[in-house]
């Protein structure tokens, strides 16, 4: 049995009075690419953001339940440490309006690394791992907002990698990208698999089938089922999963 890096037990979450997650139980093993599919408002993004506590930035949000990360209750880990160790890629490429270099170096400097040569090395490595280095190596000083959408999203991946996380969360990372940019990001994800645990929330069931090893189906705040990806897509246990992946709704 592979070690579980994240274990979620009986998780419930609310925005105000509205319950968005109901009794979710979930396990993620190390170095796995895990997919979460489901229609809009099924709670998949909220679930993702529970893991690095980003939901708490919203007014009126609260959750209950037990989430352990590397065997430790996440409530005992500081926000800063938790978010350094569990990085996130947002749906739209959220680059900061500074240079490519400064985008990647931002997190590194935040965590106290100020030696220029070291930062340079981390920036280069991160951009390489995000499969962006060859496209930008001659123009690291370029305003990052002038990159294409796909490049910006890979820059965001590089920026997350630069702070050396253990887990990377992807919140519909390709929803605004063309198929070629999407393919590049999926390639990067496969490359990253040997060092990172990755959780991919996606609206695109085909992408989930292509990229993920295990996949979960969320519906109206409930996790309907989770299984090894080929099984989930060929022999779903629940009728609702079957309906969703075969396109009868959603």
């Amino acid at each position, binding site marked *: 049995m592979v070690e579980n890096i994240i274990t979620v037990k009986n998780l419930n979450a609310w925005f105000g009075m509205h319950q968005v997650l109901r009794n979710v139980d979930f396990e993620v093993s190390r170095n796995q690419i895990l997919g979460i599919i489901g229609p809009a408002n099924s709670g998949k993004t909220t679930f993702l953001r529970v893991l*690095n506590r*980003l939901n708490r*930035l919203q*007014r009126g949000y609260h959750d209950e339940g037990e989430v352990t990360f590397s065997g430790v209750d996440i409530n005992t880990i500081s*926000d*800063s*440490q*938790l*978010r*350094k*160790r569990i*990085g*996130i890629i*947002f749906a*739209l490429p*959220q680059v*900061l*309006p500074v240079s490519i270099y400064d985008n990647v170096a*931002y*997190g590194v400097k*935040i*965590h106290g690394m100020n030696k220029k040569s070291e930062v340079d090395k981390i920036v280069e490595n991160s951009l390489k791992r995000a499969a962006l280095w060859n496209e930008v190596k001659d123009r690291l000083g370029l*305003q990052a*907002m002038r990159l294409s959408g796909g490049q910006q999203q890979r820059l965001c991946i590089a*920026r*997350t990698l630069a*702070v050396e996380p253990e887990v990377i969360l992807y919140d519909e990372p390709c929803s605004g990208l063309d198929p070629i940019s999407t393919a590049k990001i999926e390639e990067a994800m496969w490359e990253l698999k040997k060092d990172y645990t990755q959780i991919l929330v996606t609206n695109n069931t085909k992408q989930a089938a292509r990229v993920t090893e295990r996949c979960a189906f969320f519906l109206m705040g409930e996790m309907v089922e989770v299984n090894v990806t080929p099984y989930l897509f060929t022999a779903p246990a629940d009728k609702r999963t079957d309906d969703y992946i075969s396109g009868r709704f959603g």
Partner: protein
Amino acid sequence: MHRAVNREKLAFTILGIITLLVIIPIFLVIFYIVKNSIGVISWEFISQAPRHGMREGGIFPAIVGTIYLIVGTALFALPLGILSAVYLVEYAGDNAFTRIIKLAIVNLSGIPSIVYGLFGFALFVIFLKLGTSILAGSLTLAIMSLPVIITATKEALEAVPFSFREVSLSLGASKWQTVRYCVLPYAVPGILTGTVLSLSRAAGETAPILFTVAAFYLPRLPRSVFDQVMALPYHLYSITTQVPNMPLGLSFATAFVLIALVFLLNLASIIIRSRFGKRKVW
């Protein structure tokens, strides 16, 4: 169809003319002042003290006094105003307490300046025993400027997209690091524009300095922050209304210098904004 186009043209023309009307007063004011002061303005007028019951000589002490007051106001009002806006926008939750604070700020900006003057006189001059001094005047002007500075800073901070904060926090930055590196740099142009405008307004105020600092006639320069000073707006008021047989040119020349000073401050804020503005690309 054709009629609709014509009516639209007519509407736009009327709107254009009305907008033009807005700039007429400012041009008239400037034209009138320049026309009446042109013979009086000279290097001597700017660099010398008034003589012969202020009917001759220059306004140098008043210029220096106004500059001291602007600097003093900035020293007190900027840190206080900017930091409270940062607290309100970035840290404070939405509860009864912060709502009362926000309401207070809005109401503070509606208080007439003469009331600030009386308040400053009672609190700083009498109660805190600062006397009529640069210190008391600057503090009074600072309190008057606070609501504008806080509101401008708040708006500048709120204009920075929430996603910048989210990105920074998601990389493990602390709240303060996020504010310091991911919010404030992008809010600086807006903050500066607002604060400089509020300072230029403070520079032109008469009522708040009336009882707290302004000297009617004091041809020497102040020696400490506990000294009184002459100030341009009050000097203008007194020579125009309190001194008989005053040459009109001197009043207009004083007005000219005051307007030029305010204009220079505004110009500085425009330059700063355009220099930072190039960085704004989102």
